[in-house]
């Protein structure tokens, strides 16, 4: 008897709570991102201002990339996430699989200088289902307190005789094959043309073969700065923002080599069947506006996807002397030999190259 009463009271309370929320016209969305310094930059630049402006709250969750969780949620018909920060290749794949909502880029707000959104965003910022927020890149870095006469080019990275020591590489063919070809003398504009041929793939793997015994493989973005700090590797590829944060935030003496950096974008996508899809769309529009993207650049060295954000990029949030502009992958000085990731190529060839890469790895 007592139990029943308790249960009833509990239900009544829960119902009351639900209606209280509905009454105040504020809601909550679940935003999923990569964690660490990157999520912090989003919380500071997107979540807090959005909450201040609309009264809606954002629940932040971390994941480690890939869209398997999204696929599982959508296929089970039990979607709990609303909006997710994905790599471009996953945005395309997720859209193909029908996991994400379609987004019309013309519905996005114009830039602060009045440029329409479709022209304001840098090329390659839209897929059918996603909108870019930042430009990041895969670079390689070394510890200048250990390696005094450091490497200058991507060819040095692949030269274990002149620059001895272990190398850190991401356990994935992506970016590695491009960098291997660049080190082998292929111009950055021709990389994907060469990689589209069988000989080109052989050539890239042959170059990777030359350092295979020296490689320590990493998977999560937080690993490479750790590997460098521990002295496990002499140099490692990494996401530029992670190295920047180790330098700016923790005072490490890491140096980034921008030669043959592989540029990519991260994108917001809204999950099909998301419980708060409309709010999530509002959040997406808010967070990809000129000011928010520029504000994010004070927390992490990833470039804003809007051109109109560039003039507003200032200094590091905790160090007024550290100009963020030159730290961006999109800074003119860093772009000379940059390789923009060709998502179409990867969407077509990822299965085959992954298969070949996995087989190469264990042989």
């Amino acid at each position: 008897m007592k139990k029943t009463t308790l249960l009833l009271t509990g239900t009544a309370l829960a119902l009351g709570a639900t209606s209280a929320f509905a009454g105040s016209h504020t809601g909550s969305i679940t935003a999923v991102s990569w964690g660490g310094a990157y999520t912090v930059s989003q919380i500071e630049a997107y979540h807090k201002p959005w909450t201040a402006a609309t009264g809606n709250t954002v629940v932040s969750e971390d994941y480690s990339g890939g869209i398997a969780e999204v696929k599982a949620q959508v296929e089970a018909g039990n979607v709990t996430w609303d909006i997710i920060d994905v790599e471009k290749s996953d945005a395309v794949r997720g859209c193909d699989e029908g996991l994400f909502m379609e987004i019309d880029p013309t519905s996005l707000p114009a830039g602060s200088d009045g440029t329409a959104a479709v022209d304001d965003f840098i090329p390659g910022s839209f897929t059918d289902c996603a909108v870019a927020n930042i430009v990041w890149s895969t670079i390689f870095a070394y510890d200048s307190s250990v390696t005094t006469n450091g490497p200058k080019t991507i060819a040095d990275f692949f030269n274990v005789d002149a620059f001895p020591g272990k190398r850190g590489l991401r356990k994935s063919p992506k970016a590695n094959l491009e960098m291997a070809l660049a080190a082998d003398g292929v111009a950055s504009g021709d990389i994907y043309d060469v990689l589209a041929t069988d000989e080109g793939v052989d050539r890239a793997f042959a170059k990777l073969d030359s350092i295979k015994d020296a490689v320590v493989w990493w998977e999560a973005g937080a690993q490479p700065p750790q590997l460098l700090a521990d002295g496990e590797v002499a140099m490692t590829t990494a996401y530029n923002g992670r190295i920047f944060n180790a330098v700016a935030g923790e005072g490490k003496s890491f140096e980034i080599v921008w030669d043959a950096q592989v540029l990519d974008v991260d994108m917001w996508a809204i999950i099909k069947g998301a419980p708060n899809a409309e709010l999530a769309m509002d959040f997406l529009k808010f967070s990809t506006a000129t000011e928010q993207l520029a504000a994010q650049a004070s927390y992490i060295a990833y470039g804003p996807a809007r051109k109109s954000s560039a003039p507003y990029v200032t200094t590091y949030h905790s160090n007024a002397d550290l100009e963020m502009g030159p730290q961006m992958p999109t800074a003119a000085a860093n772009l000379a030999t940059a390789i923009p990731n060709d998502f179409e190529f990867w969407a077509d060839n990822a299965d085959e190259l992954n298969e070949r890469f996995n087989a190469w790895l264990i042989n």
Partner: protein
Amino acid sequence: MTDSSEPLLAVDGTPLKRKLAQSMFRSRARAFGLALPLLAFIIVVFVYPILDFLRQSVYDARFATLMPATSEAMADWDGSTAPTEQMATALVADLVVAKKEKTIGKVATRVNRELSGTRSLFTKTARNAKKMKPPYMEALIKKDKDWADIETWHAMKTASRIFTPAYIAAALDRKMLADGSIVQQSEERRIHVQLFARTMEISFLVTIFCLILGYPIAFLMASLPLRTSNLLLILVLLPFWTSLLVRTTAWIAMLQAQGVMNDLFVVFGLATDEDRFSLIYNKTGTLIAMTHILLPFMILPLFSVMKTIPPSYVRAAKSMGATDWTAFWRVYFPQSVPGIGAGALLVFILAIGYYITPALVGGQDGQMVSNIIDFHMRKSLNWNLAAALGLVMLVFVMFLFWVYDRVVGIDNMKLG
């Protein structure tokens, strides 16, 4: 006195035999009824999901459902002749629908698994399919010359099978062709068979190491007084209360090039500072970390079996002139075999499916099948292949279990 030919009757006059059977049935039914919730629970959350997932290893209706006309038009085509105009017509009609229903991405992804590069071919063609005019084969080839390549049509033919052995073939490094024959993969793509072999090798070695390290400890625990053995038991159980992730990460700190072990080696002159041992991010690291983590699973069954072996047997053997070794080997050891069987089977089966530890410390040659299954689950989203790999693994473990039963005998196993 009663006549022996007359059946015994219960108080109410029914034969005692029937009465007994009735009450036996009732108690059995009650026992079954009590176990029913657990049984239902296991079926709903364990057996059914596994079977449903394994179904994916042979069942893939994606292409056939989304491209119905094409699948039907191709049904009688054996792949040896040129694709017909009828097939092209059906294809264009399906592409128009797929574009409109926004299912073209799913179709393209499916065919791309069979032939790399067809994803963009499908999405591009679908964008223009509505404007195409007959003859469709020419229109397709005009759009992209890859449509003239019979390989493209072969890939579609393979993808159009609903029940397909293609994924299981792929899990065994084989490839199914359009005519249904199965050939071996090209050499630089073979990976799974080798990975299965390595998984077996690692699991086997880990089991042996656990046995070598665990047997003396269990023996010690079983022969010490209760107070001391309880303390040892707590030490054995202590790692269980620490997160698996923490234990694995601790091994990284111990074994890495700049880690504790290598520092000690340098101090004692076993290694030079420039040329330290590679103890982690390879097979060695996987073996060391897994042996440590699985050791309790060997010690506990051994301990519980050894505890039941009366010490008087060994004393009796010695009193009759057996040496220490003979007494151990001929008297004590055979009695501990059930514990070895249970521990070894437990460790081996746990090791075969091990995932986090090899993923963290395995580097390139310490990876196991579970890691490639994880890759197909999370990264490539090829759940069919993941299911096929899981099925092959399951069948293999069942086979080993059967062999174990024949060789050692499952009755010979004792968990406590």
